[in-house]
């Protein structure tokens, strides 16, 4: 029998601590859409997405109302377009992005992911066309998200692509300069990208996935912070135990939502992504959890250890609560989307170098970081290379989503709006050049730990 305390605790988590299910994401394979004529291909893509996801938003809203748990996003991810569109006789995939954008509007979702290429070991012709199309695709659409995987523990790092992505990010910023370079907020460069991640901007429907799947990303930094408020001065064993218990409860709700969504949509359940995903709202911050552990400001020495404990405890607690766990699973540290991170950058306690260290133990990488508009492409490539190396060597997903905002410099700040938040320009050590290093190109060989057989 559930008690009145249990019921009130659940509802307090929802109303006061902003517990929510962050996203229901439907993955849709586009492998059967291939056609040499790009117009026909775009029509096939549009038809398949709108047919498959017709009831996604309605179903999400129904579940939200019945259980009283907010479900913030309903989204779609598709097969990487570099693969799906490769048969098209064309030199640009921009029309495909536009078709995805129209389909996303038609079904009422707020982002669609999968304008992507997987090039960690090398390019196919479709990969090259896709990467060249990214800046224009992101400038001429609003809901399309793009990602490129250019490194992995198994394959090493494609340094030609590292060089190219620095330039692609700069071009994307330039083409969307009238909107604070928003295009770059929809572009993620990965190492070890998972094919079942439900979170944007890096979601795509992996090539080994089923025809369609429904995956759920949970959240709840506010709930974890609240639970730790009662533990002032307690030792770390107790802190870890409390986070585990809280993550368990959060994830059980995610599992319930995933099960219901899968049943109602008639689409198999994929995975639960055990994540603490912050928003700029007060009380929904990962940085504030770290500060609750005893750090005066996020970025102070001890921050990486605190994040490591948090990340690990979230996984341990969540794992038991779900039948299939996957995606990125961990604590996100997107700077502009986290009120505590924004404050820490503004007061000077959190630097990009400290964030890089934190990415060794968080779920992904350098995320939603606004940098000066005059940062060179080679410097951005250097940042990407460092992150990709951390992912490759540590067998984890890492990513870079930086926004070089044209016309902005250190001391300015930039407003992206909504859940993308705002961010003071973060200083980068760009007075020392990475150009000759990045110009080498080629491949960084796969590390010794790739040889596991």
């Amino acid at each position, binding site marked *: 029998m*559930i*008690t*009145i305390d*249990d*019921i*009130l*605790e*659940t*509802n307090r988590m929802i109303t006061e601590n902003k517990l929510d299910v962050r996203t229901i994401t439907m993955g849709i394979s586009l492998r059967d859409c291939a056609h040499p004529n790009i117009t026909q291909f775009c029509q096939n893509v549009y038809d398949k997405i709108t047919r498959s996801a017709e009831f996604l938003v309605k179903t999400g809203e*129904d579940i939200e*109302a*019945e*259980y*009283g*748990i907010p479900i913030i996003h309903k989204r779609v991810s598709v097969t990487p377009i570099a693969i799906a569109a490769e048969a098209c006789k064309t030199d640009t995939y921009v029309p495909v992005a536009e078709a995805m954008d129209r389909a996303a509007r038609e079904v009422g979702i707020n982002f669609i992911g999968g304008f992507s290429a997987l090039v960690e070991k090398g390019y196919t012709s479709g990969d090259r066309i896709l990467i060249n199309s990214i800046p224009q695709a992101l400038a001429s659409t609003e809901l399309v998200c793009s990602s490129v995987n250019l490194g992995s523990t198994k394959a090493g790092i494609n340094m030609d692509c590292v060089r190219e992505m620095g330039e692609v990010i700069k071009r994307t910023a330039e083409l969307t300069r009238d909107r604070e370079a928003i295009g770059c907020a929809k572009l993620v460069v990965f190492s070890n990208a998972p094919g079942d991640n439900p979170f944007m901007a890096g979601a795509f429907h992996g090539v080994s996935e089923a025809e369609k799947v429904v995956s759920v990303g949970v959240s709840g930094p506010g709930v974890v912070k609240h639970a730790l408020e009662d533990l002032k001065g307690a030792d770390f064993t107790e802190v870890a135990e409390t986070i585990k218990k809280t993550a368990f*409860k959060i994830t*059980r*709700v995610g*599992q*319930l939502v995933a099960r219901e969504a899968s049943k109602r949509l008639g689409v198999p359940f994929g995975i639960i992504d055990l994540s603490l995903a912050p928003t700029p709202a007060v009380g929904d911050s990962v940085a504030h959890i770290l500060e609750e552990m005893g750090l005066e400001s996020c970025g102070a020495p001890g921050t990486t250890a605190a994040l490591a404990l948090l990340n690990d405890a979230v996984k341990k607690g969540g794992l038991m609560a779900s039948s299939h766990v996957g995606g990125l699973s961990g604590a996100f540290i997107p700077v502009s989307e986290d009120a505590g991170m924004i404050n820490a950058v503004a007061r000077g306690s959190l630097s990009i170098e400290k964030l890089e260290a934190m990415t060794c133990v968080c779920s992904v990488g350098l995320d939603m970081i606004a940098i000066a508009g005059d940062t060179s492409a080679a410097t951005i490539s250097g940042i990407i290379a460092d992150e990709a190396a951390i992912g490759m060597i540590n067998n984890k997903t890492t990513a870079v989503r930086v926004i070089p905002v044209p016309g902005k410099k250190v001391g300015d700040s930039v407003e992206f709006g909504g859940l993308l938040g705002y961010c003071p320009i973060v200083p980068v050590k760009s007075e020392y050049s990475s150009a000759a290093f990045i110009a080498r190109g080629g491949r960084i060989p796969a590390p010794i730990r790739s040889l596991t057989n």
Partner: protein
Amino acid sequence: MKLVVTIVGKDRVGIIAMVSNILAENNVNILNINQNIMDGFFNMVMIAEMGDSKIKLAELQKLLHEKGEEINLDIKAQHQEIFNVMHKI
């Protein structure tokens, strides 16, 4: 389907009567009521069965919410399963 109705707000005469009335009018059967008052604040949880009811959950939620707002009460009606999954293994 089992329903959990939670009512939170400032205590006053007739809260239980008002909520029970709405449920009765819609053929929703109350199985259990748990109530306490903390610092003048009224907390009530009802477990109810709406298997025989003709009304849709969304409509009932709207009805309870509107009635609650009139007298400054926060009334929620939720599917019981969310509480079960969170608190029972």
